[in-house]
C-alpha cells in the first residue's frame, strides 16, 4: 500500500489551501485596519473581527438605492475561519481514512467552490455585494462554456475528439459579426433583425468549420488532435485577416447587440428572477439546449446510436448504422453549437469583434465536458464551476482587493488543469473516441 495516495494528496492540498487563505485574509485585514486607523477613517472597526461582508438581494428592476429585499451580514474573518476550519477538518479526515475514491471528488469540488466564496467575501470586507447580480453573472458567462461543452460532447460521444471548438467559436463570432454588419448596411436597418441574421450565419459558420474537421479526420483519417489544431490556427489567421482587412474599415448602421429578454412575471421574483429569467436570448437557448441534449442523448434513437458508434462502432455498423456518416453529422451539429457560442461573444455580450476574443473558452469547455463525465447536465455543472471563477474575477475588480486581478484571471485556467489531472475523480471517455472507423 502506497503512503501517498490520491485521497491523501487531495486532503493535504486542501489543508494547505485553507491555511494559506486564513493567514492571507487575516494579514490583509490587519493591514487594512492599520491603514484605516492611520487615516482616521470612521469606517475602521474596533478590531479585525469587526469587518463585515454584506451580501444583499435587491428588488428586481428597481433603481439603485432602493432598499434591498434581504441583506445577509457575514463577519468576514469569522466566516473565512469557519469555512477554512471545516475544510481542514475534512482534509484531515480524508488523510486519516484514505478512501479509494469516495468523497475525493466531492471534497475537491467543495474546496474550489468555498475558495471562490472566501475570495468573494474577502474582497467585499467592509462593503457589500449584490448576490443576485453575482449569480446572474455566473449564469451569463457560463453560456459559451455550456454550449462549447455540448459541442464537444456531441462529437466525442460519437467517437470524434474535437479540440477545434475554440476555432469554430472564433470563426462563428467573426462571420456572424460581419454578416450582421453587411446585412444592416444593405437594408439600412439598425434594429435586431440584422443581428439575428448574424447569429444564424455564426451557427452555419461553426458548422462549416466543423465539416472541415470532419472531412479531415473522418474522410482523410488525419489524427483528430492535429485536425482540431489546424482548425484553431486557421481560425486565428482567417479572422485576423478579415478583421484588419475588412471589419475595421466597414461602417454599418448596426451598433447594438441582442436585446435583453426578461421573461414577464418570472423575472420579477427576487434572486431567482435576475439569475434565471432575465437574460439575453442565447443564454436561454443554452439552458434549454442542455436539457434537450440530455433527453436526446439518453432517451432517443439518435442518442442511442450516437453512444453506440462512440463506444463500439463495429457493433453499431453490424446492426446497420452508417458510422462515418453519422459521425460526420454529429461533428457538424457540434459545430453549430460552437458557432452559437461564438455568436454570444460578438453579438450578445457586446456588438464587436476582437482578435482572439474567445480567450480559450473553447478549451475550458472541453474540461467542463470531462468534469461532467460526458453527460450534458454534468458538463453544465462543470461550466458553472468555471464560469463562477470567471464571474468572480470580473466582480472582484470593482473592489479594492489585495490580490492583483491577473491572479484571479488565472483561476479558470488553474481549475481546468486541476480538473484534467483527474483530481475530481476518474472519468471514462467513450471507448472508441479518437479512433477513425474503417469498414
Amino acid at each position: 500500500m502506497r503512503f501517498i495516495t490520491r485521497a491523501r494528496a487531495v486532503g493535504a492540498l486542501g489543508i494547505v489551501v485553507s491555511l494559506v487563505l486564513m493567514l492571507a485574509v487575516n494579514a490583509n485585514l490587519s493591514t487594512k485596519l492599520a491603514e484605516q486607523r492611520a487615516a482616521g477613517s470612521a469606517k475602521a472597526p474596533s478590531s479585525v473581527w469587526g469587518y463585515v461582508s454584506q451580501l444583499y438581494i435587491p428588488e428586481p428592476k428597481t433603481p439603485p438605492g432602493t432598499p434591498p429585499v434581504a441583506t445577509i451580514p457575514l463577519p468576514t474573518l469569522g466566516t473565512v475561519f469557519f469555512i477554512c476550519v471545516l475544510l481542514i477538518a475534512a482534509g484531515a479526515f480524508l488523510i486519516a481514512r484514505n478512501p479509494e475514491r469516495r468523497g475525493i471528488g466531492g471534497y475537491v469540488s467543495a474546496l474550489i467552490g468555498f475558495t471562490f466564496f472566501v475570495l468573494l467575501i474577502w474582497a467585499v470586507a467592509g462593503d457589500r455585494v449584490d448576490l443576485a447580480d453575482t449569480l446572474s453573472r455566473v449564469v451569463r458567462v457560463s453560456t459559451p462554456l455550456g454550449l462549447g461543452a455540448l459541442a464537444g460532447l456531441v462529437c466525442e460521444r460519437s467517437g470524434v475528439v474535437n479540440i477545434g471548438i475554440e476555432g469554430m467559436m472564433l470563426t462563428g463570432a467573426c462571420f456572424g459579426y460581419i454578416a450582421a454588419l453587411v446585412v444592416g448596411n444593405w437594408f439600412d436597418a439598425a434594429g435586431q433583425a440584422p443581428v439575428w441574421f448574424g447569429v444564424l450565419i455564426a451557427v452555419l459558420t461553426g458548422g462549416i468549420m466543423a465539416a472541415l474537421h470532419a472531412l479531415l479526420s473522418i474522410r482523410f483519417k488525419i489524427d483528430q488532435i492535429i485536425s482540431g489544431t489546424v482548425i484553431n490556427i486557421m481560425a486565428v489567421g482567417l479572422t485576423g485577416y478579415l478583421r484588419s482587412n475588412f471589419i475595421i474599415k466597414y461602417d454599418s448602421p448596426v451598433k447594438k447587440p441582442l436585446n435583453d429578454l426578461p421573461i414577464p412575471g418570472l423575472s420579477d421574483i427576487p434572486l431567482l428572477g435576475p439569475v434565471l429569467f432575465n437574460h439575453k436570448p442565447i443564454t436561454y437557448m443554452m439552458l434549454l439546449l442542455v436539457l434537450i441534449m440530455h433527453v436526446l442523448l439518453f432517451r432517443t434513437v439518435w442518442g442511442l446510436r450516437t453512444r453506440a458508434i462512440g463506444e463500439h462502432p463495429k457493433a453499431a455498423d453490424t446492426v446497420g448504422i452508417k458510422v462515418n456518416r453519422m459521425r460526420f453529422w454529429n461533428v457538424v451539429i457540434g459545430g453549430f453549437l460552437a458557432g452559437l457560442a461564438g455568436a454570444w461573444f460578438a453579438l450578445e455580450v457586446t456588438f464587436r469583434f476582437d482578435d482572439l476574443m474567445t480567450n480559450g473558452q473553447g478549451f475550458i469547455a472541453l474540461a467542463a465536458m470531462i468534469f461532467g463525465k460526458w453527460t450534458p447536465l454534468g458538463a453544465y455543472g462543470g461550466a458553472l464551476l468555471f464560469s463562477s471563477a470567471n464571474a468572480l474575477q470580473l466582480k472582484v475588480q470593482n473592489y479594492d482587493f489585495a490580490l492583483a486581478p491577473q491572479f484571479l484571471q488565472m483561476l479558470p485556467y488553474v481549475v481546468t488543469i486541476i480538473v484534467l489531472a483527474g483530481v475530481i475523480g476518474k472519468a471514462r471517455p467513450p471507448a472508441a473516441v479518437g479512433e477513425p472507423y474503417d469498414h
Partner: protein
Amino acid sequence: MADPHDAKDHRDPDQHPQDVVEQPAAPSDPTVPATKGVLRSIRWGELLVPILAIFTAILVGAVIVFLSAPAEKGSRLHVTWEAFKGLFIGAFGNWAEPSTIPNALSGTLVESTPYILAGLAVALGFKAGLFNIGAEGQLLIGALTAVSIGVWLPGWIGVESLPAIIHLPLAVLGGFVGGGLWGAIPGYLRAKTGAHEVITTIMLNYIALRLIDYMIVSGPMKDPAGSAPRTPFVQGPAILPQFVGVVRDPSLTGGNTYQPLIATTSSTWDLRVHAGLLIALLAVVFVWWLLNRTPKGFEIKTVGANPQAARYAGMSIVSTTVLTMTLSGGLAGLAGAGQVLGLEHNMKSVFSGGLGFDSIAIALLAKSNPIAIIPAALFWGALRQGAGAMQIRSGISINLINIIQALVIIFVAADQIVRWIYRIRREQGGQMVFTRGWGK
C-alpha cells in the same frame, strides 16, 4: 523486443515515428561519421510533399490576395504581383539596390532564430508522441527568467556587474530552466495523471500570459523609467551580441553599453542578427545527437512510436515523458531568452506574436526531423520578415501570412490532401497519433 543495439540498420536512423509501427529506429553504429548520418537522414523523395504543400498554400494565399485586393492600389493582378514582390524584397532585399540585401537577409535570420528553437521544441515532443502546444507559454517564461537574470543578477549577489563569460551563460541557462520548468508541469501531469498535454499546455499559456502581464504591467518588474510597460534593459555583459553592428548610444538603452562582436559605423552593415543564432544551431545539433546517438533518444522515440513496447522493454514512460517535456520547454525557453537577450534587450508585456503556434507548423513542415527544422524555420522567418514590406507595397494585411501558415499546416498535416490533388502515391505506414483520452 530485441536489444536496440542488435537491431539492423535497415531503416534510416532519423526516421519519423509515424513510419515506424513495429519497431523504432535504433541508434546507428557510432563508428559511422556523423555527417554521413545527417546526409543519409534526408530522404529526398519525402521533400516533395512539403514543397508542394507550401506551393499550394502560397497559391491559395495569392487567390485570397487577388479577391481581397484594396481597390485604391490598382488592378487586382497588379496588387497580387506587388504583394509577392514585396514579400520577396522584404525577405531577401531589393536586388536592384545591393545595399538593402545584408539588412534584409539579417532580418530573415533574426526572425528565423526563435523559430528554429521553438520548432525544435515541438519536434522533440512529437518524437515522444507529445503534442506541446505550450511553446508559447514556455517561451514567455523563459524570456522572463532570462531577462530577470540579465537585469538583476549582479544586484542580487551584491556586485556592480559580472563578466560576460559568467553573466551571459547564466542568463541563457535561466531561459532554459524557466521554460523547462514550465514544460515539466504538463509533462509530469501527463505522465502521472494522464491529463492531456494539449489542454494543460494551452492553459499554462494563458497562465503565463497573465503572469507576464502582472510582472511587467502592474507588478515588480516594470521599469519606472519606461513610458510603455516593459522591464529595465539587460546589462551589457548579459546580451547576446550582434555579429556586426553599430554601437548604440547608451542613453537609449538604459545606460548599458551593448558591444557588437565587430563594431562598424556603416548603417548598411548594422545587422540585427545576433549570437542567438549560434545557440539555435547548437541546439539543432544537440537534439539530432540526442535522438540518434544516445540511448535516451532511442527511449524517447520508442515511447513515442509504441509506448506498449517501451514499457515491455523496461523503459520508464514517466521519466521519459517528463524529460522530453522539460527539454522541449527548455528549448522554447531558449527561444524566449534569445529574443530578450539578443534582440529586444528588455521584455515588453506584449511579447511574442504567436511564435508558439508557428512552431507547430515548422515542426510539421520539417516532419520533426531536427536538421530539417533549419530550412523550415528559414522559410518561416523569410515570410515574417517579408510580410512588413508586403503590407507597405500592396496594403495587404500581415495576417495573410497567418492564413498561408494555417494552409501549410493543413496541407502538411493532411498530406493526403496534397497527394490527392497532385495524384502522388500514398506512402507506407501510419501517421502521428496524439488522440488519446483526456485524462486517465
